């Protein structure tokens, strides 16, 4: 009789604790949903075909779109990828395949970690000093360099980690066939880790696509459509920053719309990289 009562109490306790833990576990996800909710609530009404296809209207006039900022984000981020990814992959290969235990590799690793910790505004200032100042004008390219600097440490370290996971017996299988080491790295190790490296690149892109500070005094922003990377160029984070701090209600609305577009882009990148990462896990 007594034991039965005890058992019921124990089950009850179990249920209570479990529900508390579940609620606590869900808590970190709440901000994300609040953000999404807010963005959809405020931004959804701005999304229209015109918003995607038109250039910004002159200050104070309603209407207009953010076509130049969307195109600009693709160009600036694309250039950053072109600059940052090859360097990072080569460094990652060096760290994993050639410099596992040497001093130089340790120096590179620590530098990458420190670079990752440099505040983005500082990186923006450095890109300003390196490129904007000598050239005498703002340019998309300088923004891309700033973003590439932010992306390099992430891609270097993920490339290194992913390549280290490639089983050594595959390297030996290739070497035992008389294949030189550099060919083994390019044709066996890198392809085997390719999905992982791609995932790392996508995560890095998702991270830099929304960066504002590095673009403020590099890409600067532009009311018109700019395709030349040597010119100032608009980008989604810049639109959000400039519109949100403007005195016009219609621009505030558009800033919400641009935020929604940006977060959808970043979220999709994250989801694609998740799917890829799951594919790697599935292969093992």
């Amino acid at each position, binding site marked *: 009789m007594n034991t039965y009562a005890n058992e019921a109490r124990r089950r009850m306790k179990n249920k209570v604790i479990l529900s508390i833990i579940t609620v606590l576990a869900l808590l970190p996800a709440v901000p994300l949903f609040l953000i999404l909710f807010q963005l959809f609530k405020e931004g959804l009404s701005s999304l229209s075909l015109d918003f995607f296809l038109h250039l910004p209207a002159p200050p104070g006039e309603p209407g207009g779109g953010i076509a130049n900022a969307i195109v600009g984000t693709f160009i600036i981020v694309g250039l950053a990828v072109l600059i940052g990814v090859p360097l990072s992959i080569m460094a990652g290969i060096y760290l994993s395949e050639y410099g*596992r*235990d040497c001093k130089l590799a340790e120096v590179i690793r620590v530098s990458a970690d420190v670079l990752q910790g440099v505040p983005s505004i500082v990186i923006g200032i450095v890109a300003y000093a390196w490129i904007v100042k000598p050239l005498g004008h703002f340019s998309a390219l300088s923004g891309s360099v700033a973003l590439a600097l932010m992306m390099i440490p992430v891609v270097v370290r993920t490339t290194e980690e992913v390549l280290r996971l490639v*089983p050594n*017996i*595959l390297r*030996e*299988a*290739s*070497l*035992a*066939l*008389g*294949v*030189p080491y550099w*060919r*083994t790295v390019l*044709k*066996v190790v890198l*392809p*085997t880790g*390719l999905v992982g490296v791609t995932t790392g690149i996508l995560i890095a892109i998702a991270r830099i696509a929304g960066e504002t500070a590095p673009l403020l005094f590099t890409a600067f922003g532009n009311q018109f459509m700019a395709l030349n990377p040597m010119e100032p160029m608009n980008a989604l984070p810049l639109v959000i920053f400039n519109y949100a701090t403007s005195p016009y209600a219609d621009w505030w609305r558009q800033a919400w719309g641009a935020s929604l577009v940006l977060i959808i882009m970043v979220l999709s990148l994250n989801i694609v990289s998740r799917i890829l990462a799951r594919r790697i896990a599935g*292969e093992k």
Partner: protein
Amino acid sequence: MKIQHAIFRTEDLCAYYGDFMAIKHVTVSIPEHEVTAVMGPSGCGKTTFIRCLNRLHELTPGAKITGRVFLREEDILQLDPILVRRRVGMVFQRPNPFPTMTIYENVLAGFKLLGIRLKKKEADRIVEEALRKAALWDEVKDVLHRRGTFLSGGQQQRLCIARALAVNPEVLLMDEPTSALDPKATLQIENLIVELKRTVSIVIVTHNMPQAGRISDYTAFFYLGELIEFGPTAEVFTNPKDPRTEEYLTGKFS
């Protein structure tokens, strides 16, 4: 022990990992067109020994080889290791087909990874020949363009044998090729080894005494990095000269 036609001949071969001497002054001739089993307790240097024969040993950080290793008449320690490895094939303990390649591509890996282009007809011929030699053709001829990693463990190991044979090596080194396989797959590989020795010399590391008895013509017995006995397998097994060989064969240590 005189060997008429030696595929490998080592003279005072020593192999090190840093300061640790894993192979101690080994002088031996390994006969051509025979199966030579390399036996001995764990950690006695069997694997290190065969990894000296294709110079894979020196890829381990801190590893070093001294002495001489002749492949036929050439001292391979004086040759470019890459050229040595093209003449000496190797099959590893765990099947290791390249996961990004199909079965077809895996067999041709020795050409593809080196950037050697083959005509389609030539490539088809090499693939079929190698897979037939590895007794795998009938099982995979309809799925040549699927990934090699879909095969069973035993099939994967035979695929690795086909990959090694495709480049026509003079000798095949096998490092416990059946230790990760079930009895049936093991038997298939053993039959294959006996079949293969007509065309290629084989040096096989094995932990499995009955296996060495079934498939090998010669046996080298290692103990703590030293070669303590070498001779025809029948002789070594029935009438070992060294007491340590006898103790190992009778199961006093392993």
